[in-house]
């Protein structure tokens, strides 16, 4: 089992969730109001009231094959607006 961590602007959330749903992931968790700095852009929490908004952190536990299926779409989404995606190992309890 894999764990996929996606971090990106909240404004891309709908697009990413659509991608996840299309791949039929068993589930996902969304944490909003994340802030941070990437190689290119800066977001800070206290700017959330402005149009920039904050980041979302999405966690997906799923099989490797699902990740392979989604890889291109997610990369597309993230390449447009920025954001990061990392995979790690996870075992169900």
């Amino acid at each position: 089992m894999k764990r996929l961590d996606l971090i990106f602007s909240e404004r891309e959330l709908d697009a990413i969730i659509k991608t996840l749903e299309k791949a039929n992931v068993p589930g996902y968790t969304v944490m909003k109001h994340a802030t941070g700095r990437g190689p290119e852009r800066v977001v800070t929490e206290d700017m959330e009231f402005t149009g920039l908004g904050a980041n979302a952190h999405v966690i997906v536990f799923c099989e490797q094959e699902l990740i392979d299926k989604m890889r291109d779409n997610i990369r597309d989404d993230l390449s447009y607006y920025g954001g990061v995606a990392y995979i790690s190992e996870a075992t169900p309890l």
Partner: protein
Amino acid sequence: MEINPIVQNVLAPPVLFFLIGAISVLFKSDLEIPAPLPKLFSLYLLLAIGFKGGIEIQKSGFTDQVLPTLSAAILMSLVIPLIGFLILRFKFDVFNSAAIAAAYGSISAVTFISAESFLESQKIAFDGFMVGALALMESPAIIVGLLLVKFAAPKNRPKSRKMHLSAILHESFLNGSVYLLLSSLIVGFLTASSNPSGIVKMEPFTGQLFYGAECFFLLDMGIVAAQRLPRLKNAGSFLIGFAIFMPLFNAFIGVFIARFLSLGPGNALLFVVLCASASYLAVPAAMRMTVPEAKSSYYISTTLGLTFPFNIVLGIPIYMSLVNTIIPLSTL
């Protein structure tokens, strides 16, 4: 003896709270207004501004000053981004130039209400329909900014980022803050037309509470602006100069248009302030979505870190004396 109007402006609670917020950052206090509380106040202010504006427009009706003023406002929000773009292109690429220019063509609602508070404290009359100008200047500037990107962007911009007209209009009118302002204006208008008791019942929320909520929000704006200011150093002196020069330049054009339209001093100040203020809500949101190539730290740091504080603290009284100097020549 009269007190200096700048000092008088600074001694009003909203400006004082703004300064308190800024000073807290300077002195490294840990004062913080955690998210999403500032969003609460920003949504509230947009709703209340729109609602009260809608009522005023319904009350004042469409006098013969209304249409020319609103048209001039739209015109300014179309022209300013073009001028700004030309200036910014000396130093920046198309994407950044368009995004920053659009911000200066659009408006800042909080700067506008600070100008209203200033007028009230100076007992200078102004008309409610000016909120209509406020509401109408947001979208055109966004449209121009996005069209500039569409047509001036390098040919090798990826297909996926091609901007369709529908997307441009969507960003311009359905942007959360534009939408809330415009639709609250309509609600105010409809309520005033058909349900006067609804106005009375809304008054404590949208009216009485307004000034205090403005102060609270400005406290946060002071914190945010002071956190942003140092980042401007990275942006370079050209952009720092732009953030001060552009509002003054726009104010200057604005005051001559106000004179041409024979606006009274109150309306003239509001018109000038709309021209001189820059957007940190609607335009950044739209640019972040559609022009990811532009650095958000450029358009946010200039508008929030420099132009906004400048207008709030010094700009408004300066524009007032500009209005007083230039307008009487023609109207008296």
